[in-house]
């Protein structure tokens, strides 16, 4: 799949993080970017848009990223959800991976890692 054909969902309660991520993903040639501000919105937007890739913050109001991840995987067990958090403790990592996260990013987000993940998912989509 071309990166430009991908649909990506960004879920973070920080408008600044979403803006920076969106700018970076746009710079990779992908403009189908959706934004959710909490876990509940993320699940709803996932169901509406069926994105190819999700970047999900863990600490969020309403519903945490891990709970949203569970709901998304219950809806589509092949969903590719990358968890992003400033809290990168072993336990968080373990819970995220055990729950079925595609990958884990430690904040501050390193945009090179984002590029690698987007490129990898695009290739897998072929």
């Amino acid at each position, binding site marked *: 799949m071309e990166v430009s054909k991908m649909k990506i969902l960004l879920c973070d*309660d*920080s*408008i*600044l*993080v979403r*803006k920076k991520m969106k700018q970076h993903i746009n710079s990779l040639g992908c403009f189908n970017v959706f934004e959710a501000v909490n876990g509940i919105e993320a699940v709803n937007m996932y169901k509406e848009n069926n994105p190819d890739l999700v970047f999900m913050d863990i*600490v*969020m*109001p309403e519903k945490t990223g891990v709970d949203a991840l569970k709901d998304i995987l219950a809806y589509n067990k092949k969903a590719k959800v990358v968890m992003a*958090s*400033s*809290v*990168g*403790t*072993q*336990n968080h990592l373990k819970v995220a991976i055990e729950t079925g996260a595609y990958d884990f990013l430690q*904040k*501050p987000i390193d945009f090179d890692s984002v590029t690698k993940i987007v490129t990898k998912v695009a290739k897998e989509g072929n």
Partner: protein
Amino acid sequence: MFTQFFGNFLLNQNLVANWQLSEALELQKDTKLKLGVLAINAGFMTADQVNTVHSAQQRMDKRFGDIAVEMRFVTHDQIETLLNTQKTGHLLLGQALVDKGYMTNGQFEKALNDYKKLYSINDKDFSDVQNGKIEQVIKTFYHFNNFKYAKVFTEYVSLMFKNIIRFIGDDFSPLEPVTTNEFEAGWIATQTIKGKYNIFTAIDGNEEAFIEFSSRFAGEKFTDIDEYSQASVAEFLNLHNGLFTVNISNEQQAELELAPQTVQNNKIIKTSSEMFCMPICFPFGTINILLSNDIPQIV
């Protein structure tokens, strides 16, 4: 990181005023280190000798190093060593204060020696951010000594300074902390850490300081407090608290959770036990770091 505390030391000794320190913090970015300041710092020359060379320079067109060697104050090798000295922050600050005429070379020499003696630190400690001695400086400076969370708070604040240097800038100086049960906030980003330790954390500032702090972290210029600037300070706090919980988790196998951050304006923060308010002076204003082991009421 000792640089930042050196600035505070100068304030406490009444050697400089708050506004002079702010101005020097701003100026140090463009300050070039002079050999004289380096020589005093290294203990190769006294302030008097440096002044003698400076006066001689006014009469003859020669470089500082050449005159100092001719006068046998230093050797060629020592000059070489000085020229290879790294630019360290406390020297830039000292130089900026001397250049402005707020301090003399003699006052700088004395202050530097007193400061090093007080905390028993050497030149290497000064340039070594990873040095464990910084924790001792912080513990003493903030009077955490008899406090229940002394160790945790010391780690928290040490990491906070590292993160401020990494993400905001090193042009700051910590001011004397205050403990209080009630804090009147301007713009304030808060986040609670829960688990083995329950800690209330916050970053507060007036509008101007909050905007500039948020601009620096985001790497873009904000002109007023909008949702982006609010998100920026909140994200800095979240990032810092995240790194802190990782450290605690690694050291103590204690899992800590972070609650979502909030940003509020004109609130009173009330705690039943004491809350530490740690002001930090930047050229753009003062930012307060708040820390308490009590989850406060915010009204």
